[in-house]
């Protein structure tokens, strides 16, 4: 009994133009795969200007200011953190993993901590006594602890504005970033976006995962790319 699905190593007689799985729709890769940190920032559809200004002001006036992003997984907390980090060359960004010891936290202006609810007591104390502006992405409200350390806290719930318009923009940027050459690209319509929102709600990570499989199922195909059947 043998089962084999499509896979390819480049062979001696292959040629590039015929070889690309999505060359037929002008894509050099599946647009919904994992991205590097830099790519994620450059493709983010977030408005971080307001938060950047708040932090900038706090740094100028040496105020203890903290911003908290609260939301469920897949709603865009980390993307916003990374987008903010790209605006501050002096900042430090630390991700606190679940099953590992609390990592080293470098000084920064501001200090950004992702999954901050996992910080150990000592690590949290070290961050909060630094006096520098803080940005936390967290699943648990840490306002009380921040206020106790003299911080002025503003909390934002992330994910409530995840709608079809935002999804359309996000998907279009992803597709454009995977362009192979000049010419037409697959079109992601508002109708596609609305149907996906109905199906997955505001969980954009789940939508990206679904779209990956959709695009993957159409490699070496022809005609028009279908994002939702």
């Amino acid at each position, binding site marked *: 009994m043998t089962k084999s699905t499509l*896979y390819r190593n*480049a062979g001696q007689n292959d040629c*590039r133009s015929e070889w*690309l799985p999505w060359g037929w729709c002008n894509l*050099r890769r599946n647009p919904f795969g994992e991205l590097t940190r830099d790519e994620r920032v450059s493709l983010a559809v977030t408005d971080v200007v307001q938060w950047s200004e708040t932090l900038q002001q706090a740094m100028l006036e040496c105020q203890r200011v903290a911003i908290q992003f609260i939301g469920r997984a897949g709603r865009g907390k980390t993307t916003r953190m990374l987008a903010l980090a790209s605006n501050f060359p002096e900042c430090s960004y630390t991700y606190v993993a679940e099953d590992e010891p609390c990592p080293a*936290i470098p000084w920064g202006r501001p200090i950004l901590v992702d999954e901050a609810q996992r910080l*150990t007591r000592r690590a949290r104390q070290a961050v909060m006594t630094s006096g520098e502006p803080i940005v936390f992405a967290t699943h648990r409200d840490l306002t009380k602890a921040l206020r106790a350390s003299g911080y002025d806290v503003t909390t934002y719930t992330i994910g409530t504005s995840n709608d079809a318009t935002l999804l359309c923009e996000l998907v279009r940027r992803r597709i454009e970033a995977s362009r192979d050459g000049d010419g037409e690209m697959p079109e992601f319509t508002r109708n596609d976006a609305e149907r996906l929102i109905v199906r997955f709600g505001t969980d954009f990570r789940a939508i990206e995962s679904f779209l990956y499989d959709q695009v993957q199922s159409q490699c070496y195909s022809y005609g028009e790319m279908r994002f939702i059947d």
Partner: protein
Amino acid sequence: MAKCDLSIELNDGDVVQTGGGKISGIVRVRTDANVKCNGLDVRTVWKTHGRGNVATGTCETKTLFLGDWTAGHAAEYPFELEIANWPPTYHGNYLNIDHYVEAQAKIPWAFDPKASQMFLMRPTGGANAAITHATATKSGGIVGGILVGFIGLFMATFCIVSAMNPIVLVFFALAALGGFLFWFFRSFLPKFLLGEIDCKIEKELVSPGEKIQGTLFIRPRRNVSINKVELKFEAREQCVSGSGSNKTTHQHVFFEKVEHLEQATTLVAHQAHEFPFSVQLPADAAYSVDLSDNDLIWSANLRVDIPRWPDWRKALPIAVVPGDGSTAGTSRDTGTSRVPERSNRIEPDLPAVDVPLSANDNSLVTFAETANHFWSMRDNNDAAKMLAEAVMGLSFMIEAKIERRLLYSGEDDPHVYPNGYAVWAQYTDPPLPIALYVPHELGDEFEQVGRGIWKGQGTVVGWDHVHRRLQIKVDRPSSLV
């Protein structure tokens, strides 16, 4: 249009390039304003894309131009670059590997214009068996040492903790019982019934189109009825996305073949039963690849199905490598192909490490050389960790640019001096990230250095895999030692 546009044209860009060879072409630059360029860099790189975290590697970088471009300027810069000979171009379901020529113009106070052009690469021959086995043995030794260390540590912790807290003793006892039951049902019971059982394969490294051949021997203690003996031959892509709680492992089996070596029968007591097997790999079999979070794994799993009894199972380590007759999988002059002894993965992009393995013999090794080795393998945590183990305890004169102090250096970090500090720094050339552990009495010295260059003596103590930094403990001033 941006102030400056780049494009790349490859010579023979449509044909498959051979790994370790050269690729040439032209970088075209068009400007519509006066532009100062701090370097027009062109490089050959490989990258993964798909479901796993992106892995990437650079083969060769050249700077083609440095200076000013005037408005309306159009120029062509020819280049010739080496092509990495591993990993090969591959497209699957969750894992894809592609090679590119990338160009980037460094423009001060502006976004750097970039261009990239993909090309296909295939390795030109077989993995170098001698290097492979030498590395595998070394790897196995280190892994074995670590394992023995862990068991020792576990036993010591168990004794201490159980003496202090009986509840923890119960926890440890339950964990040990679970482990024992697993071993009892998975290993002991099948072997108890089947008696002497062994399996040999002719070679663990095979090439596409070749046969994997071996034999399963069974000499049971008593008559044993079996349902079947089968060999399941499988290839899968295994990719990890995210990290921590967001970590997800994606697996896609893209090849599966089941060979029935024996149907239902009775194995006669004290008689040697041999089950030879021979499975041919597809001629286009994808090569085994291990790129951190992006693996392509081949495995052969033997199973003796025993009715109303736990089955006997064994996974055979195999790796699919390019055909014989060349050095594919080994970098041009710094690389080595390697297959961990007890793994069916291949990690061929590790630069050869030529550093003393004894902590007492570093008179001939400079920190610059050591830093260069770490720099070349900084994207491969496993290799960097292995190198760190090899050079651990070596003391060097170090010159590093201080970046920032740590607010918190980790509760479990054993390297921090009591009341000491930890700072992040960067070696000058190459810009290798370093974590320096500073004794309390040198605090003032580091305060004065600020973000300048610090010079001093330090000892390698490990590799920080989270931040990809070489960990160095700054030596105490001799007057205080």
